């Protein structure tokens, strides 16, 4: 039952019962959980604890979840899973835009949350391949670093995984469904907005002009393709 493998989770949730319930459940699943009741406390704990993943409620008193998400992204590449209210589609889109890796809808079954946690925490396989160059983009599959024009690019976990997945087979088209399965480990009916939002964020970081992308190209009506550069 110890699936979490001791990964550290920072849970930011203002409702005490939900917070305690999720803390209990995730602890039972083998995670080391620290919980915060507000965004401010959560950001403080983030610096002190350096968690592997943040589970972030969007509706928070004080600074709200979006702002917390933005500040976490400004400071590092920790994985972020949003807790959103069912049916609040705008929240989902806005949350993904400010850098969340994935989201779950409240009320969430802990086993569902756990599956998402596992997916975002999955270590990207490092291989001994040469450093790849695609135009001005350098991808180091061994060191898991990316540089654009010699400048290191900081990518969130899903952004990195998406780039590695696409660039692994340059020129091949990946459907959103395939990407949802390979990058997010969602089933067939995953939310394709996750892919679209992640592609937007990735382009903003690696493309010169994200309205005319060179590396991550859209294939209308089907999906995405890396290159040709």
């Amino acid at each position, binding site marked *: 039952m110890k699936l979490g493998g001791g990964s550290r989770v920072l849970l930011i949730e203002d409702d005490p*019962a939900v917070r305690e319930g999720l803390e209990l*459940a995730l602890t039972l699943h083998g995670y080391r959980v620290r919980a915060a009741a507000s965004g401010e406390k959560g950001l403080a704990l983030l610096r002190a604890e350096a968690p592997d993943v943040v589970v972030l409620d969007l509706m928070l008193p004080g600074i709200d979840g979006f702002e917390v998400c933005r500040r976490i992204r400004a400071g590092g590449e920790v994985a972020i899973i949003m807790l959103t209210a069912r*049916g609040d589609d705008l929240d989902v889109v806005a949350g993904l835009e400010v850098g969340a890796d994935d989201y779950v809808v*409240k009320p*969430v079954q802990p086993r569902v949350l756990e599956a998402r946690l596992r997916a975002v925490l999955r270590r990207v396989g490092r291989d001994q391949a040469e450093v790849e160059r695609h135009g001005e983009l350098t991808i180091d599959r061994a060191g898991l670093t990316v540089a654009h024009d010699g400048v290191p690019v900081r990518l969130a976990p899903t952004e990195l995984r998406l780039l590695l997945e696409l660039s692994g087979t340059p020129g091949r088209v990946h459907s959103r469904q395939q990407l949802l399965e390979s990058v997010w480990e969602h*089933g067939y*009916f995953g939310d394709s*907005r996750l892919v679209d939002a992640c592609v937007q964020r990735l382009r903003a970081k690696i493309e010169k002009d994200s309205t005319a992308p060179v590396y991550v190209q859209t294939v209308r009506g089907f999906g995405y393709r890396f290159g040709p550069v």
Partner: protein
Amino acid sequence: MSRRWLHGCAWGLRARLLFTFGLLCVVTAAAVAGGMYVQARNAILQRTQDAAVQAMTSSLEAAFPLRSASPGPAELDEIAGTVVDGNSSAVAVYHGARSTAGLDPAVIPAELRSAVARSRIAWQRVVWQGSPVLIIGTPLLIVDRDRTSRASGIEVYTARSLLAEQRSVDGLAASAWLTGGAALAFAVTLALLATRGVLRPVRELGRAARLLGEGELRTRVAVRGADELADLARTFNGTAAELERHVEQLRAMEADARRFVADVSHELRTPLAALVAVAEVLDEEATRLPEPAGRAAGLVSQEALNLTGLVNDLIEISRFDAGVAALAANEVDLAELVGATLQSRGWSESVQTELAPAVTARLDPRRVDVILANLVGNALRHGEPPVSVRLRADPHRIVVEVRDHGPGLDDAVLPHVFDRFYKANAARARSEGSGLGLAIARENALLHRGDLTVTNAPDGGALFTLRLPRRTHAPDGGPR
């Protein structure tokens, strides 16, 4: 009676009014003008006849006494000459002989001659050479000394043209026709004006009633004048206002009720989130708990999940009600989608599929998954195996049929299958699922501008048919 009434109804109000007015006018004009014509004509002719007879007898009296009892042609000429004036001709007849000039005896009708032969003054109108003629015949009598009289055998006939009288009678008739025609035209004009005056408000009322029926509850008609139609218009306006008030009230109540459900669902979400989180902990520990705590824990866990399903469905349907449900459409392979739906729920083995290959459509896969999961889940729970899913397509739409082979649905149940919380069996207090599944499925189909219907298959079993438009014609959005 009723048939005649129906027949009458087949005419428009305008036609009926026009017809009635016209008929009334024709009958009145005919009665008045006809009556007057007949009377005037008779009076004219009578006066002419009387005058002619009078003139003839008085001039004959002047011819008396006769010079011989058996006159010759010369005497007959003389007799005829005494009764002729400017516009008549005459003939005197004595047995075979006749006066030489004047009227041709052939013109004189036989009945007139026989009447005169019986010693009476008689007259008759005949048409001779195309013009009306009054012929008056009189026998000449011989008065004896004892003051008795006997026929002399001499008969005198005069013919007098009635052309002038004919002309004035014709003039009378013409003016009667003219007056009647003018009156008819006038009556029709009046009738048209009257029908327009009546029909315009009637038509307006009809249009207003139609608009009202189509849901335009603000429809009112203008009230003109103070007649029955104005009363009707006022009544209509009053009814419409009342209807509008009631409908607004009902709408407000319904909106309140729906908002309440949405609010309650949202409020339930937070405690439910805590409950669901803890329930799983309980569930996993249940096997280690002593009875009955273990079973209780299992129940709590199960019911927390059921409650979550219900609240999620309530939130979903309140989003449809609020009109904020949105499509995330994608180009999707339908066979792949159906396969994924069945596989993700472990139904692949228990459901027969007949899926047309390479059918793609632009739709929201997650919403279609919800529809299919509801239909198949329903068939597996309430129907009899085998449950089958069939996919067909034409260039414009895709059709997915989900059916089971059970006894099918009651005819009384069929119209309510997609109602919220509808329970086919009142005895079943609570079914699996929220009772909203099929309602949500249908809303999802409608959101795609498709539809979802149910019938009983001819050979038994409920047959749900989902039709969705393909919308694959975007030039650059099509499948590869």
